[in-house]
């Protein structure tokens, strides 16, 4: 269900995006950083769904808040001639890997049929 929705969303988004507008080059760096922030949020959301502690408010505020904050940081960096967006990318990509690790661990353990035994331990650990 989760992955079906994700794949469907991605395909639809790609199709609409192909027919969508072209943004000017000046703004493409902002869009790029927003994309990284959104990716971070999506992976965070997936891992939250897996961990069953998904909170819509936190998710949405994270999605838009992170994107806007990173865009602002990029803008500030451009004005100061410092590549601040690199810091945002490092944080986001680091978190992405963390969340991917959570997802991976979940499926590896599920695959080996240990999830039911471990779930109690996992819940206390996390």
């Amino acid at each position, binding site marked *: *269900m*989760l992955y079906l*929705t*994700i794949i*469907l*969303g*991605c*395909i*639809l*988004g*790609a199709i*609409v*995006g*192909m027919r*969508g*507008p*072209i*943004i*000017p*080059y000046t703004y*493409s760096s902002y*869009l*790029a950083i*927003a*994309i990284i922030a*959104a*990716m971070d*949020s*999506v992976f965070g*959301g*997936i891992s*939250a*769904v897996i961990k*069953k502690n*998904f909170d*819509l408010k936190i*998710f*949405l505020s994270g*999605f838009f808040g992170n994107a806007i904050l990173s865009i602002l940081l990029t803008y500030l960096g451009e004005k100061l001639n410092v590549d601040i967006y690199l810091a945002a990318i490092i944080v986001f990509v680091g978190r992405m890997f963390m969340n991917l690790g959570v997802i991976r661990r979940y499926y590896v353990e599920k695959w080996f049929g240990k999830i039911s035994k471990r779930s109690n331990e996992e819940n206390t650990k996390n």
Partner: protein
Amino acid sequence: MKNIQGIMVIGIMCFLLSFGISVQIKSIKNDSTVIAKENAENELRDQVLELSENYNKKYDELEEKQNKLDKLRGDASNNSVLSESWSNDLSKINNYLGLTDVKGKGLIIEIETGDLLLVINALNNAGAEAISINDKRIIFNSEILNDGDVVQLDGIMLEKPYTIKAIGGSTLYGAITMPESYIDKLKKADFKVNIQQKDDIIIKKYEGIYNFNFAKNIEN
């Protein structure tokens, strides 16, 4: 039920995400991103390396051929019946054409900036027999292009400061430094000009190739 809601929202976010990604890809496809710029730069660097290697190879080849030619010329003039006068003529002509390294007394002028054409003109006017800028020999059809701050001699960019060597009689120095001459004006305008008179200046030979395709001798 809460989970379903979350899944839906994640689906919508994925939609937005892939929408953004495809817009971004489309927008920068033909444009130069940082990465594309770096790639282009690397490609250019590769090209420079390749070209310089090619150049060095060709230069070596040219040198080899020139040595061969020199040898052949020497042989030809040695074998000839009229050898003595022929070889003299030949070396004289080569000297005129700038095809031999020459040595003699003259001037070394170092200037930071300025119109090289005027300097060369003044030197020629004063009877210089051989002139080089940054060890590039000036020959009879040498061209000097002033393109803003970049000066090209026969298509080769010259680096600052310019070192002009000229071989000629003792009139050279006076002619170059006389009041109201170009060098004098440069000096007065507080540009760095350094002129040395020396007795043993070596000027290297012209390293290009003469190409005469249209001017033919008229046979009598």
